[in-house]
């Protein structure tokens, strides 16, 4: 397991704390980990120290499939410079409702699809790219080949 220092260094610029560290350690292994309560089964993101539903501290970062449906979609015409981001496209940002639980959502971009195909309601699956030496979870349209 990477040290806390190494983790903070790989994800420099992202605020990581004791509650979210496991999620980012998961990214290093290209596994998307979302907190699930071991007592009541509720999924919640972003990571909280206890289950907001039953107050159990027995919350476990649990791998999700990353399959889901686009719930929110915007297209950035400008923004802060970032590796692999071209605002001329413009750059899509989507919030995906994950299949694991109603209302459980994860936000990232969609790769490998033209903007006009990225629409609320489209099915997506998880994929990974790289930014600054750290794996970045992204989505692909589910019916896209490859």
């Amino acid at each position, binding site marked *: 397991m990477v040290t806390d220092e190494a983790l903070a260094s790989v994800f420099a610029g992202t605020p990581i704390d004791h509650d979210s560290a496991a999620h980012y350690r998961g990214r290093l292994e290209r596994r998307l980990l979302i907190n699930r309560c071991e007592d009541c089964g509720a999924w919640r993101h972003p990571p909280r120290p206890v289950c907001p539903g039953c107050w159990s501290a027995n919350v476990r970062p649990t791998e999700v499939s990353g399959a889901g449906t686009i719930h929110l979609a915007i297209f950035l015409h400008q923004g*802060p410079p*970032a590796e692999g*981001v071209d605002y001329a496209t413009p750059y899509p940002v989507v919030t995906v409702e994950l299949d694991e639980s109603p209302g459980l959502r994860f936000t990232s971009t969609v790769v490998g699809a033209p903007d006009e195909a990225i629409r609320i309601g489209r099915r997506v699956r998880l994929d990974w790219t790289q930014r600054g030496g750290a794996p970045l979870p992204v989505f692909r349209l589910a019916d896209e080949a490859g």
Partner: protein
Amino acid sequence: MISARNPMKDKVAIAGAATTGFTPHNTTRSQASLAAEACIQVIRDCGLTAADINGICGSAVPAAVMQATLGVPEMTWFANPSIPFGSQVAAAAAAVHAGLADVVLAYHTPYRLPWNTASALKDPFRRGGMATPGAGAGPETVAGVAGYTAWAARYLHEYGAKKEHFGYVAINDRSNAARNPAAAMKTPLTMDDYLGARMIRWPLCLLDMDVPVDGADAFIITTAERARDMPLPPVLIQAAVLGMIDRNEEDQTPGLHRHGQHVVVEALKAKSDFWTDGMDVFFPYDGFSFITLSWMENVGLCGPGEAGGFIEANWDKAANRILIDGRVPVNPHGGALSEGGSQGSGHVREAVHQLQGLAGPRQVAGARTALLTPGGFFFNAQGLTLRKG
């Protein structure tokens, strides 16, 4: 849990409000300088001196800095809650009602910073003011400023609303700002101008987003009794609500049907003696145009997704602005989109001036009540009912 309990009702007053006016470019002044100007003005307007102040409630400029800047000899209470400005009003009113302070100086400094305008980076004295949200983490987020854009997209998707509906809000604000000397943007705006404006984050363009400005607003908040002895007509704080639900992250909030605004509306209605039928002037927040449509729907002026049609039915063609039932203007000072992005302090200041009869060419004749809904959806939905004392 929503409660109608409101022992503070009409017991605390805003005795005065002052502004520096807003400038849509980088001035050569600090936030403390702008705040000091507005604070000195309002203290004088209320017939007070520094020694009369014993509470300070501000935003970015720390209370300790403000006290030192103005030479306020002694304070018994101070706070710096986070914006929007309903937080400052609520905290100051509660402190006065509870007896923690008797005369509170409240202030906010809208200021051009790297998070709201990239040109602020050109001024080295503005770089340390506030970190850019999510800087370094990449743009794959709907936290912060992108949140309203994301839910605006969902609004278009769910209701088949049109981009023009957002445009009505921008045009209304611009038409109103023409009559406000404090406003940053006064050039008349057409729907063609709006539809042709530079896209920033689809579906929202430059004219859907508030104007970054330099400026300050300041207020004196005290007991209704004390305010009656001051030179200006008191404006009573009838009720204040800072509403929030548990899923308050931008991408996890349940949906357009359930977020902080719904809590604000239910609680504010329960705590107040009047609602939309009894309001003389309406201040829905407009930091993003879409937020105004959402407040209009959620306070019950129309149903979900119907704000565009409601505005069309309540459009004053002669003045090129919204006039609800031919009577109630909406953000008559020009709001965040045209007076300038004040995170709510401009809305509160204009409401106070309207209820004091000091709004000049914008004055709503005989205005006695104002409904204000500062802020957005997630962790910043707020409500205030104010009435003439």
